[in-house]
């Protein structure tokens, strides 16, 4: 079975995540999802599972900050909660201090929580409005029977001061604080049990820029002082660049690239990372703006594309081996295929379409014949047939569709390892975890078993 993630393994790492999956059952209830079939066994359960996290592996070393970046809906928050075992993983393992959290539950799991904490995105809702700040900070200590009452109060006050608040605010309610201050209370609460590892889920994205910087600085100071390890989740690449040591980029439930910060930002080896970096605006009017933006929508995580998940939007999809088109002609075919899929035009005249999509290069040979066929369908308004030919014979034949990519590539700028899930890297790869063609995801034995268990 393919290991769909970075093929690295560092036994020294504080946290090791291995092929972690979290699928959500879309429907609930006793009879939800049951469908009647024409064939035996007549009844089946439809798999409308949302594959929020679908085979993610990475390590976090002690004392480092791993940045996790991705667009909304890519599964990063679910990953964070699954790593901390707030959600039960569908499959895979999370080794923390030598124990597999995925196997733990109940009291042993609760005890483990002393060493791993979390900071939430929304400073408004992450503090119980009914509790004073002091008891909020003391609550984790109490849960793990740390210190006596006086000791906890003293420690809470000390921590409040550490995170930049006035210890006299011990008796205040959260609503008396601003967003940035509340995020500091969150920090103090997380630190109270002296954890080794903190997951920070977008901790600064709800804050104003100037406040963001204050909180980020405090987090860095605390990391140094308490020797903390962070998993830092954000959608803002600027923040990630500032705080991380290494960065993982997520797309549709997968990690597509993982490398040291400088390496990733200066030498990205995945087209999605590239696109994401190009899309960030720079606070400088002389920077020349953004380039080459992505088109199309993120596909549904219920039925993600086979192979590389980014292939439906990737500007660099690889040409299937069976054709021999020029690069330009292939790009035109891809663009045309996506346009047909989105029904982005109404034109049905083949010549007009040719001049619109195949101005500079027309595919010849087999590819040309197939294209003619597709254009013919469009002329007769048979859009579904045209779409079928174009996707089945072109898009789905690409190595990007048939094989799930996983490569380790050389790092050019740093000593760290560089993982990239892109077939463009197959020639330069040091190692690869691609040893069999990815079969249709739904048909995987592993996936089938876990769903039946739900």
């Amino acid at each position: 079975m393919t290991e769909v993630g970075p093929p690295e393994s560092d036994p020294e790492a504080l946290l090791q995540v291995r092929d972690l999956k979290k699928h959500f059952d879309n429907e609930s209830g006793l009879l939800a999802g049951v469908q009647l079939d024409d064939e035996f066994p007549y009844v089946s359960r439809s798999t409308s599972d949302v594959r929020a996290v679908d085979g993610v592996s990475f390590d976090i070393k002690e004392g480092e900050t791993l940045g996790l970046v991705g667009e909304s809906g890519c599964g990063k928050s679910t990953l964070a909660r699954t790593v901390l075992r707030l959600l039960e993983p569908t499959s895979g393992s999370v080794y923390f201090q030598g124990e597999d959290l995925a196997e733990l539950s109940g009291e042993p799991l609760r005890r483990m929580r002393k060493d791993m904490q979390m900071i939430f995105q929304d400073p408004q809702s992450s503090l119980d409005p009914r509790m004073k700040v002091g008891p909020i900070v003391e609550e984790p200590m109490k849960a793990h029977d740390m210190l006596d009452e006086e000791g906890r109060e003293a420690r809470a006050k000390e921590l409040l001061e550490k995170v930049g608040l006035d210890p006299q605010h011990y008796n205040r309610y959260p609503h008396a604080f601003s967003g940035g201050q509340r995020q500091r209370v969150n920090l103090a609460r997380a630190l109270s049990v002296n954890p080794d590892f903190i997951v920070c889920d977008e901790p600064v994205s709800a804050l104003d820029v100037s406040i963001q910087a204050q909180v980020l600085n405090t987090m860095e100071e605390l990391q140094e002082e308490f020797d903390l390890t962070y998993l830092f989740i954000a959608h803002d690449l600027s923040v990630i660049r500032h705080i991380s040591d290494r960065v993982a980029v997520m797309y549709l439930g997968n990690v597509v690239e993982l490398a040291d910060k400088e390496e990733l930002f200066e030498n990205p080896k995945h087209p999605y990372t590239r696109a994401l970096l190009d899309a960030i605006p720079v606070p400088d009017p002389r920077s020349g703006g953004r380039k080459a933006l992505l088109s199309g929508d993120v596909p549904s995580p219920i039925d993600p594309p086979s192979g590389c998940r980014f292939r439906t939007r990737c500007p660099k999809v690889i040409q299937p081996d069976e054709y021999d088109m020029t690069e330009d002609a292939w790009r035109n075919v891809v663009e045309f295929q996506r346009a047909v899929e989105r029904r982005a035009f109404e034109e049905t005249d083949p010549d007009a379409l040719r001049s619109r999509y195949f101005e500079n290069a027309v595919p010849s040979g087999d590819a040309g014949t197939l294209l003619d066929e597709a254009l013919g369908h469009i002329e007769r308004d048979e859009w579904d047939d045209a779409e079928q030919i174009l996707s089945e014979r072109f898009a789905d034949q690409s190595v990007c569709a048939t094989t799930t990519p996983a490569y380790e590539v050389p790092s050019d700028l740093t000593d760290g390892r560089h993982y990239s899930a892109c077939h463009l890297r197959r020639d330069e790869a040091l190692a690869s975890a691609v040893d069999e063609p990815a079969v249709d995801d739904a048909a995987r034995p592993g996936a089938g078993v876990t769903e039946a268990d739900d």
Partner: protein
Amino acid sequence: MSEPLLSVRDLKTQFFTEDGTVRAVDGISFDVHEGEIVGLVGESGAGKSVATSSILRLVDSPGEIVGGEIEFKGETIFGLEEGDDGELRPRDEMLTEEEMRKRIRGREIAIIFQDPMESLNPVFTVGGQLREFIEINRDLGAEEAKEEAIDMLREVGIPAPESRYDEYPHQFSGGMRQRVLIAMALACQPDLIIADEPTTALDVTVEGEILEMVTELQDKYDTSFIWVTHDMSVVAEICDRVNVMYLGEIIEQAEVDDLFHDTKHPYTSALLDSMPRPDRTVDELRPIQGVMPEAIDPPAGCRFHSRCPEAREVCREVHPEPRELSDEGEAPHTAACVKHDAFGVGYDESPPIETEATGGFSAGFTETGGEAE
């Protein structure tokens, strides 16, 4: 320079609450010329949104425009004069509520709101909502308006607009809804569009697409924009001229390049310094200390003095009005900071304030917390 399209002078909008009067917008002045994208930038609570709703005279109770003038293409959107009894009253030429509705809102000035999820009515089709606004503001019949609506949806990059015309907002993604809102604004063919943080709720890639599209369409239709945002990167990318707001006031006003490369107000530079950069690794961020004070009780003197790294004693006393600081022949550049010689209030001789802002990070917070005591 030609007559401005929109001219705002000394606009004051206040909210009368139980706790006191909130001076949300406190005497701001700016112009928008034809074909320009003017930025209005500031942090939460700076008064940006109140300023824009004041322009359309759509301030919700208990808010009220209490002073200043708003002129648009020679018409008075807002203006007061002193009556016989010394009371302020609307000037005769000020547009009535009816005229605002029929002639200005939508038709001349359109608005794009921040939240694409909430701004569209969930129970009507996207096309129907768009068509209604076109019918009202362009005097078109239902059929023509529908055609226009479909064209506009295509223009803003919505695939298969004929079939999506009949879909409901919940069937659209956030980015697509924001495109619909932009289509609404453009379809009414106004001269000015107010974009109130239209991309804040979106992912960067989607934001990029939308900004690119707006730039293209702006060239095509030559519409002027007021672009409200808290994001300096967006400002850098899209605006021609920028107004920086702090606590109800515009503290710096310049062309975009000057603002970033010849910054004249300490707040603007502090804001720029506090941002992490995507294009290079910054080792240490320099945050602005403290939090923005309440608009209900703004600090005396310069409103930024409590957080300003360059504050001196004089800043506590003198409240600076924005002044023109550019040299002869340069583009206008105004800022409201007494450190510039043009103010001549003895900044250089004044001793620095021993503020919390200079005393390390933790003190800064205890101070703001203390303020609430």
